[in-house]
């Protein structure tokens, strides 16, 4: 087994795209550690821009202001998965519902996407990275050597989301409501013009509905090992 791991080059770009609730975050992190790779949480970048826009009272459709806000930003991912922007640790600040909403709004703006495209490619320079997001394999890293599209059925994703919210103490939404929200978001995600959520032509699709986290990671490792690089 040790030999098999050695054969995986140290500088691949592995992309993991998929809808919310498919288990992307945990699986990407665990896969990155198994490979000895870095983990690129691209959602956190959009959240950071969302945070800055909120703090600067920038409207989510004020492209000029957004472009100004993006100028000269320095992103640094920390070893524990945290994020610093211009030296400030924003890890705890970017997970609020307000920032989520703003992140979603600014991610629809081409100026922001264009800017973060370069940032993401910059952060991935040298390879050896697992990049998680929604357009990694299609737009940001079309040349990535390994692409996964992680999915799960609507029922499973809704249940996971419901459970996550509940365990965080948020009992405001019912399972039915969450299912409806996810279905709407699925439709928007796959039909929008700007970076629609879809698997890259060369992506391996994995359905995590019936699999445990570890099983998905093992499956990905197996697929990577079987490739000839």
């Amino acid at each position, binding site marked *: 087994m040790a030999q098999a791991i050695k054969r995986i080059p140290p500088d691949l770009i592995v992309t993991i795209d998929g809808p919310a609730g498919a288990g992307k975050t945990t699986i990407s992190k665990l896969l990155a550690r198994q490979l000895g790779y870095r983990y690129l949480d691209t959602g956190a970048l959009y959240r950071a821009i969302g945070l800055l826009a909120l703090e600067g009272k920038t409207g989510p459709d004020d492209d000029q202001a957004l472009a100004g806000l993006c100028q000269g930003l320095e992103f640094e991912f920390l070893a524990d998965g945290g994020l610093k922007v211009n030296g400030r640790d924003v890890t705890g600040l970017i997970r609020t519902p307000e920032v989520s909403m703003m992140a979603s709004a600014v991610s629809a703006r081409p100026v922001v996407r264009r800017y973060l495209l370069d940032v993401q490619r910059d952060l991935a320079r040298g390879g050896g990275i697992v990049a998680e997001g929604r357009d990694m394999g299609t737009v940001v890293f079309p040349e990535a050597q390994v692409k996964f599209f992680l999915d799960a059925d609507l029922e499973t994703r809704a249940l996971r989301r419901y*459970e996550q919210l509940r365990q965080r103490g948020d009992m405001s939404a019912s399972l039915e409501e969450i299912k409806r929200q996810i279905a709407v978001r699925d439709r928007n995600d796959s039909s929008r013009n700007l970076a629609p959520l879809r698997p890259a032509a060369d992506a391996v699709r994995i359905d995590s509905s019936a699999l445990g986290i570890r099983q998905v990671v093992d499956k990905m490792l197996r697929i990577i090992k079987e490739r000839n690089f």
Partner: protein
Amino acid sequence: MKLSIPPHVAAIDPYVPGKPLEELARQYGVSDAVKLASNENPLGTSPKALEAARSRLEGLNRYPDGAGHDLIEALAARFDLRPSQVVIGNGSDDLLGMLARVFLDDDSQVVVPHPSFLMYSIVARSAGAAAVKVPLKDLAIDLAAMARAVNEKTRIVFLCCPNNPTGTVLDHGRVEAFLNDLPEDVIVVLDEAYVEFVQAAESVRSLKLLELGRPVVVLRTFSKIYGLAGLRVGYGLMPEQLAEVLNRVRMPFNVNCLAQAAALAALDDSGFVAKTRALIHRELERMYTALDERGIEYHPSQANFFLIKMPYPAGRVFEALLREGVIVRWMKSYALEDYIRLSIGLPGENDRFLAALDKVLERLAEPCRRSRRK
């Protein structure tokens, strides 16, 4: 043998767990008994967890991942925390032990609600500390009285939500106010072993408390809703500085590799969690109705167990139920002498309890006729 046992250890009343099924078989010759005494998951274990544990059986010659990386990473992602805020334990009671080892000595005190989970006092006393017991008010934790019991020697305040054995929850706003009035260096341990069963929306949102910049430790477990009590795995969520010191006294391989693998898979098994929760809520309602019909007093609960007040001496009811092959918990050691605590089981098991209770109560009501028949 001559042993010199420190007096604070000699003074500890040992924890008495629910009677295991095997013991009942030995003592009473009852073989098809049902155990409704330890708040376990009646549906068994998450199937995903079982499969994950099975597939880990190969590597048992190797030590587990001492840092518990994968599990900690997954828990951090679940709660949007940093991995450095998560500490895993051999059951959540392991974390109680760590807290006591780090923060308590023979000059310190803890404040515990009473009755509540008995291990809080036991770990405190094993570290030589005094446990100040604050009585419940209407079977719920009395935050105002808890606050009054805090003094300059207090190191830890234990809260349990839902409270074992009463099944009551704490109001979020009140806990926040309680925290704000507390001296800043007093640690608040919020034990949420049963949090996944809670139905009341106003109940404390523990993760919000972690944002207050206070020394708060949230304890959770895989023993209850995930059905992994036998594997022993629980976790604590807390500020980084606290996690850092707990990890210093944590045994490096405290969570075994099967438990780590199973817990990781269980965390993702929302289907099993939903099924368990639905069963518990449905059966709780059904049992309330059944007891209402019998005119027996009980206390509705936010957990997977509830208290039932016995119209006859509860110790005798408990013993008689044992002979009928139904194990419940008599609450004498919890200072609720008139109560038994029933853990919700499968519908058939709950029916067994009801039938046995009917039989036992009828017999106790007519002791003369029974002795004549004998």
